[in-house]
């Protein structure tokens, strides 16, 4: 049996949409027991987000939900009821982590702010992921990933100098917040083991995204320069761009950072004289003459499809990559050779492929532990096995509408 890095750790997971669930996915794939608490009255909205496996958009058939909620258990609890809160209290007492990404008011509204959580379990690591965090003037502002990306400064830096700024093609701050949360959580668990004390990780998703703006802030505070977007070019190197290939909407990215690599590029293009051309002999000259250079390179890449161009360039020692579509990525020979895409069977949608674990740990490899649960699938495991309830008790809770 494969070893799990996070075996023996349990998380009561109130998170929904993308940021919190992505964090939970990472923890669950490395073996933490993730217990996702929802209710039919307030289920994770992404359960109804596309893509759906069926045209009727039926419940439990969303690929968006199923990918980010694999390796988790699901129970339904109507958190408005006192009894549900009692049950959750018992669950938190048995947990190492509480994870949520409500607004800053959310957990207090259901009776579980940090003061209450640590009263229940002083070792608890509580991770909240409000859009702007729980402090400061914007703490009650509503925020979702796509607009956080604007606020965080990434949108301004993405896109073309002559056009509008652009979002990255994913709800990026959710992902950045989710992975930042996972790092903070396992770090805090390690410390809790040493100190006997948990803590509150107050993560603001806008802030964790804004922290990824690279040198934008320091360039402003030191030099007074406000960075602008540059399309696909680099301010510091040339050539650095995507170049057209023979197929429709096919492109190959190339980046050259020094004269040695430029000579290699000229060699692959069978135009060795380029490296002696005064317009291109130094990086500074190449930056200055980048338009002319890009045209020459584009005329060469156009003869090949994007995979051919990439292979020729990489074989010659030039950093190059085909701009893969999602379909090409899934079918790519390297992606397949590494076994990145994992298949699992799901009771509603059947066997499908999903992105797996993007790092391999030699001792504790990480893998998809179980299919994303259908809503409320694990009532029996959580209530009977973990909490020790009898069938009678569970039946009664169900009749009282607590497990809705």
């Amino acid at each position: 049996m494969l070893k799990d890095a996070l075996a023996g750790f349990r998380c009561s997971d109130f998170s929904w949409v993308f940021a919190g669930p992505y964090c939970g996915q990472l923890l669950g794939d490395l073996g933490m027991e993730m217990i996702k608490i929802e209710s039919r009255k307030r289920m994770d909205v992404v359960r109804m987000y596309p893509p759906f496996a069926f045209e009727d958009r039926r419940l439990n058939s969303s690929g968006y939900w199923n990918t980010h909620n694999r390796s988790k258990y699901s129970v339904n609890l109507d958190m408005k009821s006192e009894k549900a809160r009692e049950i959750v209290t018992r669950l938190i007492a048995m947990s190492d982590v509480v994870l949520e990404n409500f607004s800053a008011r959310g957990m207090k509204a259901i009776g579980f702010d940090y003061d209450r959580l640590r009263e229940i379990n002083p070792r608890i690591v509580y991770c909240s992921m409000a859009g702007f965090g729980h402090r400061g003037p914007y703490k009650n502002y509503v925020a979702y990933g796509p607009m956080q990306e604007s606020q965080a400064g990434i949108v301004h830096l993405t896109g073309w100098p002559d056009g509008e700024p652009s979002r990255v093609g994913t709800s990026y701050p959710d992902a950045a917040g989710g992975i930042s949360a996972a790092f903070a959580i396992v770090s805090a668990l390690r410390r809790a083991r040493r100190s006997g004390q948990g803590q509150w990780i107050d993560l603001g998703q806008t802030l964790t995204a804004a922290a990824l703006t690279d040198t934008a802030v320091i360039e402003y505070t030191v030099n007074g320069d406000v960075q602008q977007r540059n399309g696909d070019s680099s301010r510091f190197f040339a050539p650095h761009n995507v170049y057209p290939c023979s197929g429709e909407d096919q492109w190959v990215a190339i980046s050259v950072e020094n004269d040695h690599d430029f000579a290699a590029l000229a060699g692959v293009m069978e135009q060795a004289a380029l490296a002696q051309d005064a317009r291109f002999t130094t990086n500074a000259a190449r930056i200055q003459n980048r338009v002319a250079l890009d045209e020459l390179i584009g005329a060469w890449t156009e003869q090949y499809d994007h995979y051919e161009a990439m292979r020729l360039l990489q074989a010659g020692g030039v950093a190059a990559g085909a701009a893969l579509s999602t379909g090409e990525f899934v079918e790519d020979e390297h992606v397949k050779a590494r076994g990145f895409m994992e298949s699992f069977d799901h009771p509603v949608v059947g066997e499908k492929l999903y992105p797996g674990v993007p790092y391999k740990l030699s001792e504790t490899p990480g893998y998809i532990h179980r299919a994303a649960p259908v809503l409320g699938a694990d009532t029996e495991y959580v209530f009977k096995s973990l909490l020790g309830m009898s069938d009678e008790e569970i039946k009664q809770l169900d009749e009282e509408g607590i497990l809705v």
Partner: protein
Amino acid sequence: MAEDGVSPVDLSLYNDIVVLDLTSSIRGMHCAKLFADYGAEVILVEPLDGSRARRIGPFANGRQDRETSLHFIHHNRNKSSVTLNLHSERGQQVLRDLARNADLLIEDWPVGALEALGLGYEQLQAINPRLVYCSITGFGQTGPYAHYKTSNIIEDAMGALMGITGPPDKPPTMTGAQQAEHITALHAAFASATALLYRDLHGVGQHIDVSAQECTASVLENAIEQYTYTGVVRKRAGSRHGTAWPCTVFPCKDGYIGMCCTQPKEVKAAVLLAEDYELAEDPVLANQFERRARADELEPRLVAGYMKYGKAQLFHKGQELGCPIGMTSDARDLATDPHLNEVGFFAEFQHPVIGSYKDIAAPVNMSETPGVMRSAAPTLGQHTEEVLQKLGLGDAELSALRADGVIL
């Protein structure tokens, strides 16, 4: 918060951890930085002519030398710098001695390059079985592209992120501020932190193989599933979200705003912010699929309203109405933002060459173990003597190493 009698050192997450940082790319440097920000002793091992990152701009006041790269300075604060020629046998021996006492080694070298120097995972694991060794490359340690060269734009491209970023009438668009490299760094830090926890519990280190291509493809939200569930290959569609509406970037009087409404009350707030009171009552707003389908027709009406106001005004007024809206901030907006400044998002650093400056600090607020900004990035080899003396090397040996070109 700190309890009485607890020293600041006790408040740190990683004050018991020594990290060897053998990286010069963002995916490596930013990963090691997270440990440095939370108290680890991070020793950046540089070649004698300095990290490659020291030669990359922007430079402080446009003046390029090895201590003025803002790229280097941003990614290496809170670290120590040791120069070491790893291509010399003596340098390799010193690194092995450092690895004996280290907890985590982070490297971003081409696959097999450190192994060729006797500094690969198995070689170091033999002398320190508790070592966590994290390799962060473009395409991972195995597979047909393992030896491919990389950079952010290559990872954006091969991680299938670029193909879905940017306007439909432009080529695939690179992420601003090198997001493939950054998101890879974060994943590597999580995997490393997890391996350290496992090491504490079970006594063994391990090798972590991080692929930037895979990390990038992991954050595509639902784009890959769109293919595996429905066979549809997503195209670039500008800033519009595929499901939610309005959820995009809109122009306004002095720039742009970002907005993302998922619930009817938020949609109504967005429409009221545009002062389109007729549309606010339209029943189309109630259904997420119907309103998204009419985005082309409805968006100009919103823009007409937003163009009357500036981004800051729209941001605060929109939020008061309950609309999830943000300004499209530039660096000046970030540096002067009242919220970010109040919650300690920035810190002041003192650098021996460029002087004092403000930069982003640790963004996550941890109640018991806050990130601590201890020092600006080190000058080249600033800590060579100090670190090597701890290994027991005396002045005579240091001089010999210097004379032999092993250290600066």
